[in-house]
C-alpha cells in the first residue's frame, strides 16, 4: 500500500459570505480578494507541510495544476515539485499533473518532467490530466471540441519524445515539429510512471487500461460515492482483459485526525466547511463548457463535481452529513483507521492520496493532522494488498521503513 500526501494550496483568506457575494472561486474570482503578501507566507507554509509529510512517513507528495482560482494556488505544479526535490530525499514526487493540451508545444511537458526526474533522482510520477473545464476551456481558452484530441496528440508526442532513441519529426494536427530531440531525458527507464487523474469519464478508463497507466479518481465527495466510479473503472478493466492489481488505481480522500472524534469536529469543521462552501464555489457557467464531456459520458449521466447541481448537493451540510456521506473521514485515529481500511478495500486502491490540509486550515493544524495520521494511521494501512507488485512507483523513490515491498 502506498500512501501519499496531496496538497491543493488553497487561498485561505476568502471573506465571510464569499459564496453569496461573488459568483465564482474560479476563472473570474476578483483580484481584489488576492493579497500577494499573504500568499508569500502561504507558499512557504505549504512547502513546509509537504516536507513535514515526508518526515512522518508518507510515501509520496502530490501537487497539481489549476489556473485563475482561489481554490488552488498552483498554476505550475512543476515549480513546487522543483522546490521539493531539494528539501526532500525519499518521497515520490507525484505531479498530478500537467494538463497536456495547455502547453505549446507540448514537448515543454516532456522537458520539465525530465528535468524533475533527473533532479530528484528518479522520484517523479508523471501525471497527465485533461484538466477541468474551468482551467482548460475558460482560463486557457482551449476549444472544448478539440481539447481531448489535443490532449491525446500531446500525450503521444511526449511519450515519443521520452522513448524514441533518435531525433524525429512529429507531424501532428495541433503540433508540428521538424526536430524533436529531448535534452535532458528522464532518469527513469523507459520513462517515469504515468498516472492519469480523471473525473469518471468512460473513455479515460479504457485508455488507461490500454496503455497500462494508473487511473486516479480525484473526488471531493468521498469514498461512498466514489465506489460507483471505481466499480466502473474495475469493470472497464475486466472488459479490457486487464488484471485487477490494486496499484492500477489511485483515490483521493479528505481526512481529519484528532485525539478524539469530538476533537475532530471542534478543530476541523470550519476548515472543511470553507473548502466545500468557498473553494468549490464555481459558477455554473464555468463548470462544463459545451463539448467538454464526450457524448458517451454525457449519456452515461456523469455529473460534474462543481457547478449548480453540485452546489445544491453541498448546501447546508453539517459535520454529521460531511461524515455520514463520506465526504470526509474524520475522528480519532481508531475511527479513521477503520474507515480508511474500508475505503481502500471497497474501492480496491493501492495508491491512497489523502488531503490533510483542507480549506482554511492553518499550518499548525495541518501539521497536527499530518503527524497524527503518520503515527497513528499510516502504519496500520501499510500492509494492505500483500502479494501485489506496484509497477507504477518511481524507481528512485525510497521505501520509508525499509523492508516494505
Amino acid at each position, binding site marked *: 500500500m502506498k500512501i501519499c500526501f496531496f496538497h491543493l494550496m488553497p487561498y485561505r483568506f476568502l471573506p465571510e459570505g464569499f459564496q453569496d457575494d461573488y459568483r465564482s472561486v474560479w476563472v473570474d474570482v476578483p483580484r481584489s480578494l488576492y493579497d500577494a503578501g499573504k500568499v508569500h507566507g502561504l507558499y512557504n507554509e505549504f512547502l513546509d507541510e509537504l516536507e513535514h509529510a515526508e518526515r512522518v512517513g508518507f510515501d509520496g507528495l502530490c501537487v497539481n495544476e489549476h489556473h485563475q482560482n482561489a481554490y488552488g494556488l498552483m498554476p505550475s505544479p512543476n515549480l513546487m515539485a522543483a522546490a521539493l526535490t531539494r528539501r526532500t530525499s525519499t518521497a515520490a514526487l507525484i505531479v498530478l499533473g500537467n494538463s497536456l493540451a495547455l502547453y505549446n508545444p507540448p514537448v515543454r511537458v516532456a522537458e520539465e518532467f525530465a528535468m524533475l526526474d533527473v533532479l530528484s533522482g528518479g522520484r517523479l510520477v508523471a501525471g497527465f490530466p485533461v484538466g477541468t473545464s474551468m482551467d482548460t476551456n475558460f482560463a486557457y481558452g482551449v476549444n472544448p471540441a478539440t481539447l481531448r484530441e489535443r490532449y491525446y496528440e500531446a500525450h503521444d508526442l511526449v511519450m515519443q519524445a521520452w522513448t524514441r532513441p533518435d531525433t524525429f519529426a512529429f507531424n501532428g494536427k495541433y503540433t508540428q515539429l521538424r526536430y524533436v530531440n529531448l535534452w535532458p531525458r528522464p532518469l527513469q527507464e523507459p520513462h517515469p510512471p504515468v498516472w492519469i487523474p480523471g473525473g469518471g469519464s468512460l473513455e479515460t478508463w479504457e485508455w488507461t487500461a490500454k496503455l497500462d497507466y494508473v487511473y486516479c479518481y480525484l473526488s471531493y465527495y468521498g469514498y461512498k460515492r466514489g465506489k460507483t466510479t471505481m466499480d466502473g473503472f474495475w469493470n472497464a478493466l475486466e472488459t479490457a482483459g486487464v488484471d485487477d492489481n490494486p496499484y492500477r488505481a489511485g483515490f483521493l480522500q479528505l481526512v481529519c485526525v484528532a485525539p478524539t472524534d469530538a476533537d475532530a469536529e471542534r478543530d476541523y469543521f470550519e476548515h472543511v466547511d470553507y473548502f466545500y462552501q468557498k473553494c468549490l464555489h464555481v459558477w455554473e457557467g464555468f463548470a462544463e463548457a459545451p463539448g467538454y464531456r464526450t457524448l458517451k459520458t454525457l449519456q452515461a449521466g456523469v455529473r460534474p463535481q462543481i457547478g*449548480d447541481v453540485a452546489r445544491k448537493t453541498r448546501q447546508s451540510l453539517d459535520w454529521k452529513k460531511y461524515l455520514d456521506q463520506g465526504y470526509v473521514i474524520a475522528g480519532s485515529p481508531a475511527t479513521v483507521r477503520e474507515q480508511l481500511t474500508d475505503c481502500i478495500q471497497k474501492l480496491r486502491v493501492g495508491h491512497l492520496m489523502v488531503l490533510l490540509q483542507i480549506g482554511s486550515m492553518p499550518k499548525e493544524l495541518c501539521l497536527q493532522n499530518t503527524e497524527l495520521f503518520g503515527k497513528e494511521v499510516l502504519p496500520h494501512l501499510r500492509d494492505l494488498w500483500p502479494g501485489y507488485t506496484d509497477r507504477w512507483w518511481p524507481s528512485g523513490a525510497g521505501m520509508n521503513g525499509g523492508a516494505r515491498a
Partner: protein
Amino acid sequence: MTPTARTVAIRDGAVTFRMLTDGHGPDLVYFHSFHDRGNGWPELLARLAERFTVHAPFHPGVQGSEGVDHLDDVVDLGLAYDEMLAAMRIESAFLVGHFFGAMAAAELASICPGRARKIALLSPLGLWLDDKPLADVLALPAADLDALLWSGASSAAASRWRTLPESEEENVAAQIEQIQRLSAMGKFVWPIPDKGLQKRLHRLTAPALILWGSGDRVNPPAYSAEFARYIADATVRELPGGHMLHLESPDAVARAVTEFFSYAPGN
C-alpha cells in the same frame, strides 16, 4: 405544408447535412442559430416558403447532420457549405442566417461570392469589439441566457422555447441535444468569435441586409455598423425586438427579408 427531410453528403460521406425543404420559388438557404431548438422549421421559414424554396440544413454535429470532427475551422465550414450547394446542384441562392447561422452564411458568401444572390444577416456573429463584448452564450446557464434572449420574456415564442419535454427520457435527450448543438457550433467560435471574417468580408459582393433587433442584449446592435463597414453593398435595418427576433417576430422579419430579396433597382 410539411417540409420534406433529406440528407446531402459531401466529402465521400465524411460530412452530411440533414435538411428540411419546403416552398415554391427561387432557392433560399437558411442557416440555423445557436438557439434554434425544436423541429427545425420555425414559423419564419413557413413565411419565407410562401415566396421561396427554403432549404434549412442543420449544421454538422446538430440534429442528425454529421461530420463536425472532420471540419477544422470556420473556413472549412464555409467550404463545406459550398460543397453542399454543389451537391444540391444549386448554383446560387438567397442566403439567410441568424447569429451563428449568419456567420456561416457570411463566410460562404465571402469565400465563394458567386453562391449568394442576396444575403440577409440577422444579428450576425463573427466580429469582435473590445468595448462591446457579446454575451458569453456558450457559458451562460439556461436561466441567465433566457433572461437575455427575448425582448418580452412572456412572449409565446419565449415560452415555447423554454418548455422542455416532461418525460424524463425526452427531457434528458433535449438537454443532451442542447449541449451537442452548442458544442458543434462553439467549435468554430471558441472562445471569441473573431476568426478572420473581417478580412474576408470584402469578398462578399452580394447585396446584404444587416437586420438587428433594436433591443438585442446578446449581440449589441453596434456591430451592424461594423458589418456595414466591411461589406460593399450593405443595408442596415433595425426592427423592434430582441436577439431572438427571428422567432419572436417572424412576420416582420419575413417581410423585411422578402422585400429586400425581391427589390431590384431598375426593374
